[in-house]
């Protein structure tokens, strides 16, 4: 997991976050399934992976004081299932940063790989920041 926090101002298009690794343990999956009220099917739900990655990403930069960050849109593509207990690595970069008056949009692109370096999923997250 990532430990450093970057200031929002430092996030410019092309900025790459340090890659983050996760172990998708049985307890993490079980907690996720309970939270989303689902039975599961023996694999890590793809959205459990996305959720953890987005949470880590959002926690890796500090927002201007008094700002509220809201998830505005999400694009995702799933390429392969990941077994419970597997490890993944996520690469994230800033695709765009838009400011319109009091509203800012931060668009982040992510690619997630398994231990064999095969792509598991990719996505684009838009975070709206408002005061």
């Amino acid at each position, binding site marked *: 997991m990532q430990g450093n926090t970057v200031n929002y101002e430092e996030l410019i298009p092309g900025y790459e976050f340090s890659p983050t690794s996760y172990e998708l343990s049985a307890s*993490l999956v079980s*907690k*996720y399934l*309970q*939270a*989303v*009220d*689902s039975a599961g*099917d023996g*694999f890590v*739900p*793809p*959205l*459990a992976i*996305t*959720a*953890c990655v*987005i*949470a*880590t990403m*959002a*926690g890796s930069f500090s927002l201007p004081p008094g700002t*509220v*960050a*809201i*998830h*505005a*849109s*999400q*694009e*995702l*593509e*799933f*390429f*392969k*299932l990941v077994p419970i207990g597997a490890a993944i690595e996520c690469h994230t970069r800033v695709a765009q940063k838009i400011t319109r008056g009091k509203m800012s949009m931060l668009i982040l692109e992510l690619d997630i790989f398994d231990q064999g370096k095969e792509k598991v999923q990719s996505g684009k997250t838009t975070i709206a920041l*408002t005061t």
Partner: protein
Amino acid sequence: MLTEIQEGKTLNPVVKHITQEKINLYAEASGDFNPIHVDESFAAKTPFGGTIAHGMLNLAYVSEMMTSAFGQNWLSGGKLRAKFKEAARPGDTVTINGKIDCVEQKDDVSYANCSFECRNQKGEVIVAGEAIVKLSIGKR
């Protein structure tokens, strides 16, 4: 799972009741403790006036509907684009509906193009989007 993949086919809806307890559980599972989701006194002072569910929680319900319809084809060959239009709040009941808009054939592979919506009990659209599922080769 759907037995027939055809244009116009509606997907089995998913209905969920949002509670603060579920939001807190989701925060713990995902690690997303944004105070807008879990801190009622903080959230009360924002334009939302109270806590709201994580957008990804609603998206998990969309994925449940897609998994129920398409199984592993969705989980390992799905693609989605979603806009979070309104906030889901504790006490809301959300219903996710979807349908197959068209089935396309590209390079001997079939794709089901779907649209989905998540609405609250007042009929307000919380999440809307499109999803594409890669089906088995040659299947139509």
